[in-house]
């Protein structure tokens, strides 16, 4: 029996089951390793802090204001990214772009550029003597050490998340729906606002959730453009430099809790499990 199996190159009867089992074992092992790698530092960090230390951090006005600043500017960035990102995403998905792949490459560029380099580059352009900063200065808008600078740094690093998310959503819409709208007398504005945008809404919300998450966690670009006022990640870094690992842990845990809980809410909104869209979908 086995001799015959060996001759024909087939595996004996017991082997397929074993190989199948091995496949699942290896898959679970490697996947588990990666998940543990993400979860362990966060758990260890949380364990390093006692409830009283956490309460102290909450009572510290500087930490509170840093977290509030991060929340506010990340949310603002998500809105700005949506307003500026949706048109670009539409052009990439539907427009007649001469060099589509080049434009797509530019959109994804922030993924590859080190964030400290982003900060330096932005500073060159946005500082008072920079190309853009000189112009906005006349309007009373300066970027160095201001919330404008924080939003600029956050926006730069999160553009790919916003644009790609919306682009994929628009690409997923049957172009015939837009053609049908046009044939029914809807011009480009109406077609976009009544058909394309509502059908891409999930992608827009998902992009905003990702932008928010990317923005609130941004350190490198923001630290160079606007070390002050301190966003939460910058504050954690400053605490670490001043007081060491243990002292920065409480602020880190607080930041972690706030970002995680807000991100979870954002994601739930984006996936439609809560909010007005969910009730409209299944029923009626």
């Amino acid at each position, binding site marked *: 029996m086995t001799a015959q199996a060996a001759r024909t190159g087939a595996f004996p009867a017991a082997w397929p089951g074993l190989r199948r089992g091995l496949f699942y074992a290896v898959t679970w092992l490697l996947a588990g390793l990666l998940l543990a790698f993400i979860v362990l530092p966060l758990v260890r960090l949380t364990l390093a802090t006692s409830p009283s230390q956490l309460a102290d951090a909450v009572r510290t006005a500087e930490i509170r204001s840093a977290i509030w600043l991060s929340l506010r500017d990340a949310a603002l960035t998500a809105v700005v990214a949506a307003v500026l990102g949706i048109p670009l995403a539409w052009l990439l998905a539907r427009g007649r772009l001469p060099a589509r792949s080049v434009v797509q490459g530019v959109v994804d560029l922030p993924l590859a550029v080190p964030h400290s380099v982003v900060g330096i580059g932005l500073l060159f352009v946005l500082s008072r003597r920079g190309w853009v900063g000189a112009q906005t200065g006349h309007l009373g808008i300066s970027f160095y050490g201001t919330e404008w600078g924080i939003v600029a740094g956050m926006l730069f690093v999160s553009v790919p998340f916003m644009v790609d998310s919306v682009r994929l959503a628009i690409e997923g819409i049957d172009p015939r729906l837009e053609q*049908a*709208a*046009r*044939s029914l*007398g809807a*011009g480009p504005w109406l077609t976009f606002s009544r058909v394309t945008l509502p059908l891409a809404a999930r992608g827009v919300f998902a992009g905003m959730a990702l932008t928010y998450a990317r923005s609130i966690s941004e350190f490198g670009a923001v630290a160079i453009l606007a070390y002050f006022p301190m966003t939460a990640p910058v504050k954690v870094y400053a605490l670490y430099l001043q007081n060491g690992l243990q002292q920065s842990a409480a602020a880190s845990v607080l930041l972690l809790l706030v970002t995680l809980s807000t991100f979870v809410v954002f994601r739930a909104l984006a996936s439609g499990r809560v909010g007005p869209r969910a009730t409209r979908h299944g029923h009626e």
Partner: protein
Amino acid sequence: MSSGLELRQLTVRAGAFRLETVTLQIAPGRILVLLGPSGAGKTVLIETIAGFRRPLSGQIVLDGRDLASLPAEARRIGLVFQQYALFPHLSVLGNVRFGLRARGERSAEPARAMLARLGIAGLAPRRPANLSGGEQQRVALARALVTDPRLVLLDEPLAALDAPTRDGLRDELGRTLRAAGVPALYVTHDQIEAHSLADDVAVLIGGRLRQAGPVQALFDAPADTDVARFLGLEQLGPAAPAGGCSVTVCGVRLHVTGKPPAAGGLVAMYRAEDVQLSPATEAADAVNTLRLTVKAVVSLGPVVRVELAGPLAVAALVFRGAVPALNLRPGQPVCAALPPASLRLVPVAGVCSG
């Protein structure tokens, strides 16, 4: 001033594909069925007329007006797609009202009236995702007609439906379109739809309009073998004039109606449903009657296709009951008659297609 749709020498490029010099007319209230295989350019033509593609040259004239300068939303052309393209985020009523709203009509009454006219008033609050294919098709038609278009374009509107639904909807669709009194361009690859819906038929193959005209004229005198094949005719073999009203096909002399043209490059064609089978015991000397052998018997549901071999290869469509009656089994002899009126002498494609 002419009314209806007129295509004049329309040429369109779509990637490597070219739609060449299409000239067509559809009068108001008439249905032109555009037949053609996949990849013939039917959808490209629809997209060009609707305004989603720019032609290289030629004119699209609707009710006497050249559409070239009009964007899609100003052409007032109703579109019905194969997959209906109903707006999934709007109710049925919302879908039908869409075009009215785009034109500034606030009232839902015209939309409700149109739904009632098509017998689907009860669907108004439903979402497209919760409708059957037939219901979606009716909604798509209601949406296209409610804005009072000057032309309706239908791109294989029944192709996505199951056979019983399709058969029921075909007549209804024809009646609705005729009642609307607008010219309709109906694209399909199904010759049954051409038979039952068309006033006029046009055959598009490989980006070229091979033939256009009243439906019976096309079925009676196809311009070439490609067109004939697409209209459901089958090839018997090259035909040579054999004196009087007869031709020889593969050495067999067959009678035809009228004197065959002297020009060469003709092929004898027939419809399988016109072939009459009779028991082989009967005399085989009647007109165009051949003694053949059953090669294969293929069931097509209500009818059976019988492939016959002999001096000529012939296929016949018979009702199921004829199979035992005529003892139609592979290897059995049978007599097949090809009535002269059912034979067509068709120019070979590419030679005489002009």
